[in-house]
């Protein structure tokens, strides 16, 4: 991330307040002191601090940020991922954690690098139970595996869907949409025909057996 540390930062209406800036600095220092080899870089943009870390110790890093009494980032407000394919970054996927402290109200972003060769990262559901569905969503739309997740399966797309749509190399508009005028034509082209669906949902479904 290119940090936008130009001279205009001083008058930036979005700059973090002094209290938040202190907490951000303390978080960087705490992670750097304990996991120096894991912390890749930090970035500041519009008063928001980002920590870029390796994925191996992600659970320990988030646990440190949560349990350190000076930091207290005890809320995971959001979890998602980015595919950096088009930007040609060294590490293609990043899983993004948005942390927040319920006491100080400071926010912090942690990005974990997930290489394309091994699409897996440890699940943080044990630390933050709210991460359950967001991790399933990332698994569904990016195909990143969360090790230790209690129930890792697709959440938004059907179970038999091919591919992961939020990846940058997932094509848009590659499939012709099936309407009533071209119903049979499309059905012939694709294996997901009405008959196959009927078989799956009404005949072979566990609820009916």
């Amino acid at each position, binding site marked *: *991330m*290119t940090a*936008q540390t130009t001279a205009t930062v001083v008058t*930036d*209406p*979005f700059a973090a307040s002094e209290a938040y800036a202190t907490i951000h600095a303390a978080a960087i220092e705490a992670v750097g002191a304990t996991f120096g080899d894991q912390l890749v870089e930090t970035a500041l*943009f*519009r008063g*928001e601090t*980002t920590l870029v870390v390796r994925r191996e110790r992600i659970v320990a890093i988030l646990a440190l940020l949560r349990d350190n009494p000076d930091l207290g980032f*005890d*809320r*995971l*407000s*959001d979890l*998602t991922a*980015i*595919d950096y394919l*088009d*930007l040609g970054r060294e590490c293609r996927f990043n899983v*993004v954690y*948005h942390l927040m402290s*319920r006491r100080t*109200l400071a*926010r912090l*972003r942690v990005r974990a690098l997930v290489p394309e060769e091994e699409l897996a990262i440890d699940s943080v559901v044990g630390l*933050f*139970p*709210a991460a*359950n*569905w*967001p991790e399933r969503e990332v698994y569904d*739309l990016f195909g990143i595996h969360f090790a230790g997740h209690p129930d890792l399966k*697709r*959440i*938004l*797309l*059907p179970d038999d869907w091919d591919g992961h*749509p*939020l990846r940058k190399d*997932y094509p*848009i508009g590659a499939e012709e949409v099936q309407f009533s005028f071209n119903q049979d034509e499309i059905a012939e082209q694709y294996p997901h025909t009405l008959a196959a669906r009927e078989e799956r949902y009404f005949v072979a479904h566990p*609820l009916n057996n």
Partner: protein
Amino acid sequence: MATTLRPNQTANGTQVMLSGDSMTINMGPQHPSTHGVLRLILELEGETVVRCEPVIGYLHTGFEKTYEQKTYLQGVVLTDRMDYLAPLSNNLVYALATEKLLGIEVPERAKVIRVLLAELTRINNHLVWLGTQALDLGAMSAFLYCFREREVLLDLFEMMSGARLMTSFIRPGGLMADLPPGWTELADSFIRAFPEKVTEYESLLTKNDIFRERTIGVGVISRERAFELDLTGPSLRACGVDWDLRKLAPYSGYETYDFAVPMRDGGDVYDRYLVRIAEMRESNKIARQALDRLPDGPVMVDDRKIALPPRAELATSMEALIHHFKLVSEGFKPPVGEVYQCIESPKGEIGVYMVSDGTGKPYRCHVRAPSFINLQSLAPMAIGGLIADLVAIIGSLDPVLGEVDR
């Protein structure tokens, strides 16, 4: 044949007697009380719910993928379609996130109108919630009362934006246009009359024995469990937590308005009802303050690299024409960076995480949808209760499936 009952501790701490003779049934996606296309796989022992697994995705339209194909300005129209009961809140959070990327602030008049509209849309959302919640529990007339007032709000939205639901009125840099003549008068008469209408709804429900029987002590969730599952919005405030982003992290000048954050301690369906009713009154207060202080001035930033030039200038100024062409074909280009911006939507914390690569389209735009996260709390609330109560609990969480599935 007699079956032996064995006690079972459920997730929310209540004990149910299980015979071991359970039945798995499917509720939804086509079910009127699921408020859209929510599907639940339920395991029942008699009428007691012992397992509840929400199955979502029936409305998944890939908004986050589509944002990446649209310019920042075009992306606004997608936000309406997520939470279609509170489109202006979604417009607002998207606009604020984009403005944060750009590093700009909007004129004062635009800010005040944004607050006014955000509160009217909160009332609009809560009216639909109240009507359908009451309808789910068999109270037909409350629905008709709520939709009577909602009609006025939709008329207001139509007057200013041309659309009743998909307003796209709040945009990066300010507003689509200024308020039309006659708008403030109609808004004024609505705000003046509304508190009495809330009293009217309350006279139908708050002391109604049937309504209280169906809601008090139903779908209880503890404060600790709500924190764990990151419940936000009115449902969290009904657990006795003072948590409102309008107070905690004010945006658009909310710190200058005088309003209270309604709270209750019970964490049940009835308390969530009371919190939302009180919120409607508070929203009305904020709307009144915003309308009274409405300053004069522009409603769009003055930067020609961001805002479209006025229509009249296009005929006379070559420069305006070039700006118009560039903005419409390529869009404005924020600097490289990433921001997370959240606001208090009627349903809880809605956040937009936007990543810019310096081009005219967002590289990644993720929405932290409150309905999606809040729906995780449904199972802990429902397990151990009756299946009839499940209907009340779904309504009390106020999910909009467009936002859950995105």
